[in-house]
């Protein structure tokens, strides 16, 4: 390597480090008139692949319903592409990883749309009813199905008040390597656990942000300094069916 390319490599690394460290908050930098460079925080703290999930964390989502537009379903298509599920137009058996809901206030007629997925409850009823221990909550709060021990009884689908789980009825091939799914097992939103484990955000959050909506925010609910916790502390937010006392990891703002 000659001197020039060494220098280039060094500058390149410094730039990368700067962008990584810009993580404390949104850093804006005016480049020229009308052009602003916004360095968003590093999505999540990547950990070594050989380290176990961190029990001090609790991953969660905050969905700003005001920023969610009716004609957009980017989060749903992003999830479908990322995890390799498809809708085949039969709602009784279709996959239910994430779906857009529309609600209407019967008095004023005001309508809102927002995505609903597995709410990653702190006290998940799906885990309570599972007879084999296949439905479980990971130490960092992500609720998953261990399909190796799932017998497909679908008790968890009955127990979930959010109808966030679905059953695979047909044999599948060519699944995504990071999202194995197969006939006879129950599946649901994994909060893109494979992405979270490598320090990225879930696909729906990433796509919503890159499409310019920014309605979804992902972060650690246990860390008071995380962006999501700060927003939860400064704005009123809701859990769906909070009356059930499940302490969901997915929260809604402006609902």
């Amino acid at each position, binding site marked *: 390597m000659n001197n020039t390319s060494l220098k280039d490599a060094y500058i390149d690394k410094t730039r990368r480090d700067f962008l990584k460290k810009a993580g404390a908050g949104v850093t804006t930098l005016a480049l020229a008139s009308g052009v602003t460079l916004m360095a968003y925080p590093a999505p999540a703290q990547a950990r070594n692949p050989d380290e176990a999930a961190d029990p001090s964390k609790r991953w969660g989502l905050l969905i700003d319903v005001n920023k969610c537009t009716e004609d957009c379903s980017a989060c749903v298509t992003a999830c479908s592409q*990322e995890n390799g599920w498809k809708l085949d137009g039969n709602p009784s058996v279709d996959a239910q990883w994430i779906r857009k809901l529309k609600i209407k206030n019967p008095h004023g007629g005001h309508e809102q749309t927002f995505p609903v997925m597995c709410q990653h409850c702190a006290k998940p009823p799906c885990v309570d009813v599972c007879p084999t221990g296949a439905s479980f909550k990971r130490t960092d709060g992500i609720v998953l199905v261990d399909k190796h021990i799932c017998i497909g009884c679908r008790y968890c689908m009955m127990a979930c008040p959010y109808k966030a789980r679905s059953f695979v009825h047909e*044999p599948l091939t060519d699944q995504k*390597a990071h999202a194995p*799914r197969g006939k006879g097992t129950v599946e649901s939103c994994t909060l893109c656990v494979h992405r979270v484990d*490598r320090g990225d955000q879930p696909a729906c959050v990433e796509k919503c942000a*890159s499409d310019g909506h920014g309605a979804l925010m992902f972060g650690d609910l246990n860390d008071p300094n995380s962006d999501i916790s700060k927003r939860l502390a400064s704005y009123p937010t809701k859990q769906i069916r909070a009356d059930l006392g499940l302490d969901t990891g997915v929260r809604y703002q402006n609902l």
Partner: protein
Amino acid sequence: MFAIMKRLLSVLVVASAFVLSTPVQADEAQSRTPGPQYSLPKDATSCVRDTSFMRRNHMNLLLHKRDQTMHNGIRTKKESLQGCINCHVTKDEAGKAIKVSDPKHFCAACHEYAAVKLDCFECHRSTPETPKDTASIPNIPAHANLLASNANNSGEAKALGTFLKGVAQ
């Protein structure tokens, strides 16, 4: 299910011991007992453990790793099913990776020979992911796209957008 798997595994241990006693792949003509027909990866010189160990214990390694990954989120490639699949790939004449439904597949070759049912590929894919499969959500930070959409034909801004996209990959 677990009990069934355990039984299957014990059958496989016996079966793989049987496999061991026959020279595989080579000297087929000289051996009177036909062995399973499989091909080893061309560019790899060694597996994660000894061949004899792997023949008897690959299922135990996979079973351990599967729980580590599923429940603890430990995603090291070594001893993972993905690691096996990515290395032990058999290609057909067209250069396409063959699936487990074909008896030439590395896993299928022995498992069909020993008549041991293989459960892994009910859910997992049996071929390595091609770049087309993995090209799902581009892992590009939001600011790169925002910059691109606000660039207003400024060369400098476009270059920065490209640079940021490069950082993400």
